[in-house]
């Protein structure tokens, strides 16, 4: 009789643990998905903005063909990138191309004074800030999710139920921001 009660108690505890772990994993995964959706919104906003920006610059600096092409190509590549890691890489390329475009525009005072161009530039800045914010949040949620996924004993439940680790959205800027450690040569 006592053995039966103990057995039932152990089974109940196990079941409770299973349910709690499962729910926790689902919640964390959903948070990460929301985080990714936030990034996606900003990526799309920028993708929509790029043609307008190119057109605006073209009006004043038509012969900077090379710069326009690299921006357009980077945009197409970014639209096709699937998955956080690939998207992050494409995003870095596009960011670089856009920076070159803005650098080129510096040479045209009339362009810089144009209201349309100023508005586009401001919107781009808005998008980049929000993209950075969305990236921070997403990477935090992925970090939490992956940590739970890897830790014992949740790892057993996660494996059995097919929870997969998620990729971080890391741009090269993150790697560049890391402090460079250098030692003076003797």
């Amino acid at each position, binding site marked *: 009789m006592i053995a039966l009660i103990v057995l039932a108690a152990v089974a109940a505890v196990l079941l409770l643990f299973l349910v709690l772990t499962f729910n926790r994993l689902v919640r964390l995964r959903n*948070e990460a998905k*929301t*985080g990714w959706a*936030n990034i996606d919104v900003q990526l799309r906003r920028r993708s929509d903005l790029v043609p307008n920006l190119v057109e605006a610059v073209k009006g004043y600096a038509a012969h900077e063909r090379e710069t326009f092409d690299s921006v357009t190509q980077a945009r197409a590549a970014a639209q096709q990138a699937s998955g956080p890691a690939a998207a992050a890489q494409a995003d870095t390329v596009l960011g670089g191309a856009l920076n070159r475009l803005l650098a080129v525009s510096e040479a045209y005072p009339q362009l810089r004074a144009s209201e349309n161009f100023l508005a586009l530039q401001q919107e781009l800045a*808005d998008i980049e*800030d*929000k993209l950075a*914010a*969305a990236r*921070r*949040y997403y990477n*935090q*949620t992925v970090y939490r999710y992956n940590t739970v996924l890897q830790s014992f004993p949740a790892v057993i439940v996660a494996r059995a139920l097919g929870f997969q680790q998620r990729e971080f959205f890391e741009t090269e800027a993150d790697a560049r921001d890391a402090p460079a450690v250098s030692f003076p040569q003797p």
Partner: protein
Amino acid sequence: MTLQEQIRANRWRTLWLLILFALLVGGLGAILGFAFNLSLLIVVAIIGFVYAIFSWLSAGKIVASVTGAKPADRAQYPRLYHVVETVAIAAGLPKTPPIYVIEDNAPNAFAAGRSPQTAYVAVTTGLLNLMSERELEGVLAHELSHIRNHDVRLMTLVAVLVGVVALASDFLLRISIFGGGRRSGGNAGLIAFALGLAALVIAPIAAVLIQLAVSRRREYLADASGAEITGDGEGLALALRKLQLDTQETKHAPRAVAHMFIENPLNQASGIQSSFRSLFDTHPPLEARIARLEEAGGFHLAPA
């Protein structure tokens, strides 16, 4: 402590305080049940429950009207909108909360509303004039942390509990003074009665002290999670330092809503504070809050 450790420690402290609160309410009930009539206790419980529901439902709306907060116009405050939207994304809120502005030169900000869906933030015009974009981000990250951590809900709940304790004590105190209660049973009955009376006097004060302790705990928590959201604890610390140097009182901030602001809107003359007085503060001293951010972030602000 790192930010993560601070966040965890503050969550635990809140839990302990809430357990203490439950013990207080339960203890009060037990003593009353013993010293007075049991049916009286049930009447009080029902009144308290109705009162709780009423103040719960009206909590969010009252704050906006009391503080004179008005919806902010996007065209008029583009920078504020940009910062709030960015921080809301970084905080992972389901949506950007509606933004309100208070015409007031004293720099301050608060968050209100019962859930992340219905919450809103308000800032004074003084805050917008005083803070740089980086500092404004820190302040709003602190406020949106209150929303994300469901602090508004927690503090409303605690306020309701305090109200219920006060109401119940007051009610029973009157009844026991104007007759009623059972006083048979000689000495033991008398002692029980005296104990009951003492409990009735002490309980409301104890409730308020717990409420304030919870409030201070949540401020530390909002600082830590705000710093985590922006990844820039120094920006928030700089903002707090500016608030510390500013001594204007927020005009429309009655004591009842003081705990929702980023700093105590009722500015006490700064100076040496006794530990007894600090028991009655809604907010920890700004200096202590800055020190914690410095510790977690590994930076040092110039002394005030």
